[in-house]
């Protein structure tokens, strides 16, 4: 794995959290295959003509990497042209992150990267190596209790069809981490990068204002 940082000044890959330092490259690859095997959807996605890398070419970044997702170190084999949304959904099985437009125009794929709301469809997975990714699945507490924003969404009947809700919640969590007591306008601004085709915007605003009203830090992150 010596060349996987490709000269970047990044911390040593933290593989030792799940394999001993003596683990060989072969064992690491086996681990990647085993962890990806449960996600069968990756088959059709990555066999489209022209989308798989030329097996003969050797340049560029190391494909095997470890992602810090929802507090877990997840080993994964990632193509150079793979977006974070693809990796999360089809390699790691985290299908709470939705793909709406796949063009950065709807917000359904919003996750937080180092606490900052980001479109995972418009982020290369290789560009988030060593950074802390949180998806909707990572919000629950230690005992499985819902995050305050999630609970408030239920209490305020926030979602209608629910497809955009994970993205809306991730944008709201990023906001409340930085600004625990926002005004309604600030919430509106923070959620403006998330479309809702049902038009439940006011319900979402109600829910976020409710979540923010507790007077405590909202995210456990």
């Amino acid at each position, binding site marked *: 794995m010596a060349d996987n940082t490709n000269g970047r000044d990044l911390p040593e890959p933290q593989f030792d959290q799940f394999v001993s330092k003596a683990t060989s490259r072969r064992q690491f690859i086996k681990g990647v295959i085993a962890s990806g095997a449960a996600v069968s959807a990756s088959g059709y996605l990555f066999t489209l003509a022209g*989308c798989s890398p*030329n097996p003969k070419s050797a*340049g*560029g970044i190391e494909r095997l990497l470890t992602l810090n997702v929802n507090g877990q170190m997840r080993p994964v084999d990632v193509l*150079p*042209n793979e977006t974070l949304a693809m990796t999360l959904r089809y390699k790691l099985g985290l299908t709470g992150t939705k793909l709406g437009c796949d063009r950065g125009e709807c917000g359904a794929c919003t996750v937080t990267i180092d606490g*900052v709301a980001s479109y995972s469809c418009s982020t*290369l997975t*290789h560009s988030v190596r060593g950074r802390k990714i949180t998806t909707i699945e990572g919000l629950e507490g230690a005992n499985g209790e819902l995050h305050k924003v999630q609970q408030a969404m239920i209490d305020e009947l926030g979602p209608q069809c629910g497809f955009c809700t994970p993205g809306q919640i991730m944008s709201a969590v990023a906001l409340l981490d930085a600004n625990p007591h926002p005004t309604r306008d600030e919430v509106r*601004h923070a959620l403006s990068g998330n479309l809702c085709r049902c038009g439940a915007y006011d319900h979402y605003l109600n829910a976020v204002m409710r979540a923010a009203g507790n007077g405590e830090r909202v995210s456990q992150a």
Partner: protein
Amino acid sequence: MSRDMMSAFELYQPDSVQGAVDLLAKFGKDGWALAGGNDSFDWFKDRIKRPKYVVDLGGIASLKGVREMPDGGVEIGALTTLTDIERNSVIQGKYKLLADAARRVASPQIRNSGTIGGNVSQDARCWYYRYGVNCYRAGGNTCFADTPQGQNREHCLFGASRCVAVSPSDTAPALVALDATMVVLGPKGQKEVKADDFFIGPNIDIQRMTVLEKGEVLTAIRLPAEWAGARFYFEKVADRNTWDFPLVNIAAAIKVSGAAGSEKIDAIRIAAGAVQCVPRRLTVVEGVVTGQPKTEDTAKLAGQSAVRGATPLNFNHFKIPLLQNLVTRAIRDA
């Protein structure tokens, strides 16, 4: 055909600008410099641009951040995100025009990953061109937007030359108004280009929007002390307040003297976006208002002078009163 998965490419993540320039020089026309990716990924997913080698500039620390310069100006790394610029205290204090423009780009998430360098270097947004047709800009010999049926509501009022696309950037007019200097590193070394000259129209090169040539990297943007703390005005009109590119935007930096109520305009730089292939510096307006009292009459005259010579297309006549009103407001309210 799927339009979701990008074509295969090899990814390089250098940690220095020189490393990036060396890689891009090696790859030549097969290379692609990637900043935030918000523009690039559209091209890749639509399979219209298929670079073999992508050089990700995101890991180059020296390209990020806002540095105050000894002369009182600032230097902004080209990979600084629009959110960082919007929230930077120095930019907010001295160059609020740029913070205001950055805040109006696209959506919060796009501003979180989108960079100032990418925003000013982004390609034309004409939907015919983006769809992948063989138009002039794509190397063909037709403009699909400038035909009797062509949908050209978003297109230009000025400077058409075969192509009628506009500069889609919100920060570009602000940088022109602030008299910024762009620092470019390429195989032949470093050069500095004024923002006025950085953006180029189809009459100079129909396949580029800026002076950047393949293999060159915009590394920094310098704002001179001269316009720090001036009066500023930025306004963007778009179909939606989020995501949409401007129909017209206006950026002005104005220096005034005299007591409130009887102010005189001593100096001004003003530029409009989305009316021409480059951010249009409104030199006629500058000439009309310099030395004049900052009054409603001056502002009205400025607005009228701004649209002189406009040649609208079939569906964009509305941009003429829009530009006129924005200029009037800028002079009146700055």
